């Protein structure tokens, strides 16, 4: 009686002479490995050589500055509201006279913290942001031994003023725009 479709008839087949002397099979195997010897390796030597990330990759957040080097964030708190993991906290402050070159609008975030252990990297903060201030980048969050070190403040999040310290998010920006367009249609 056949119980399943997967049962197999066992055969105790004797090897033929050519199979028993092994040599043809060995030569065939050696030819196979020799073909691989001349094939190009696909290895990427990681720390020296980095592969480009796809625009959908969501890593370490960045708080953007505008072209004049002023912080975009106005501490409206929409990102914190949108965050499903409740990883974002901030304290707002009013811009003083003489700080116009630091902050774009009258209100800014004096403290902005993301707990990277809480964050689930969903990207809802950047979708919620009305000022194009926060983006998730293709940078990998560095590892650490202490939980406290994973609460990233503004020192870890805001990009530098100098051109070489700016973090390019155009690819990600375009991706978000396309996504929003698709959703409105």
């Amino acid at each position, binding site marked *: 009686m056949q119980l399943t479709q997967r049962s197999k008839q066992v055969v105790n087949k004797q090897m033929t002479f050519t199979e028993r002397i092994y040599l043809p099979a*060995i030569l065939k195997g050696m030819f196979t490995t*020799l073909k*691989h*010897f001349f*094939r190009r*390796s*696909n*290895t990427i*030597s990681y720390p020296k050589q980095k592969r480009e990330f796809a625009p959908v990759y969501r890593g370490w957040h960045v708080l953007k500055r505008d072209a004049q080097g002023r912080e975009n964030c106005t501490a409206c708190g929409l990102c914190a509201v949108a965050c499903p993991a409740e990883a974002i906290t901030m304290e707002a402050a009013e811009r003083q006279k003489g700080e116009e070159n630091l902050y774009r609008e009258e209100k800014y975030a004096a403290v902005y913290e993301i707990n990277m252990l809480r964050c689930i990297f969903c990207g809802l903060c950047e979708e919620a942001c009305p000022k194009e201030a926060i983006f998730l980048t293709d940078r990998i969050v560095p590892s650490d031994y202490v939980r406290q070190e994973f609460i990233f403040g503004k020192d870890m999040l805001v990009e530098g003023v100098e051109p070489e310290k700016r973090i390019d998010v155009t690819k990600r920006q375009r991706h978000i725009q396309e996504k929003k367009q698709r959703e409105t249609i």
Partner: protein
Amino acid sequence: MFDMILLYDYVMIAQKAGLIGVIFAITLGVAAYSTYGERKIAAFLQDRLGPSNAGPWGILQPLADGVKMFTKEDFIPNQSNRWLYILAPGAFIFVALMTSAVIPWGTTLTLGGLNLDLQVTNINIGILYIMGFVSLGVYGIMLGGWASNNKYSLYGAIRASSQMISYELAMGLSLIAVIMLSGSLSLRTIVEQQTGFGWNVLYQPLGFIIFLVCALAECNRAPFDMAECETELIGGYHTEYSAMKLGFFLFAEYINMFISCTVISCLYFGGYNFPGVDPGWLGGLMGPIVLFAKIFFFIFVFMWIRWTLPRFRYDQLMHLGWKSLIPLAVLNMLLTGAGVLLWGK
């Protein structure tokens, strides 16, 4: 006794000492770079890159490995037989290094009017000397495995010794056919008879295959690496070894491979002879160059085989050795004998 030594030719002693030093250095160098070559070839056969960080293309990797081996903790197990445990790696590498003494590396080297014989000693039983020392290699493995007082080491040692003894029979029998053809046990004579295309492999194809398989088994290399068997026996006979003692074992295995490739080149592929190339060119340097080209080719083949074939099962190994290779070697010997009798050489 010292008067006897004084009677000898000082120039010759100096020459031989120099040659021994050079061969020693080259053997160790080739063995060290065999480890690098092994890893590179394995990587290329598996579509990887292999060691690439130490120096350009990773060519300083053997140095890094050596430094690592020297600086690791030198551990001696509490229940081991201490003296034998220390003696074993030394015995193994000593035996491996001794075999290079009778290899004819070339004809004569002309250095500023001096004629250097490129063979340490041309004893008339050269090949027997090599076989003798190769069979002594079992002692290093057996002592190491037994003195470690570890069941895996002992298993590995027992497997290695039974395997080496079994395959030495077929090896010796296939060798007899070559000796019948050349009529001499001296390696120099055997090589000198293979000028041009008169390589022994053309007259002894079956003998060559038997010898190659036996050489793989003698070196304890895949597909016959029963002595090490990472999957079953952890590391085989050197499970308990660490630091440079382990390094000696691994090193000696690569030296054995180098010497096996040299012997195969000399016995079956004409040694320093190549059709159209006079070994006396470049003041005698052409002979060693040709020989080393052949040796490196065979080292590559050994590695290529290792990274292609899976390991034999123990019963398959014994079956192949006793029931296939020995009868075939006897048949080969009989055919060669009949051939020599009927047509001369």
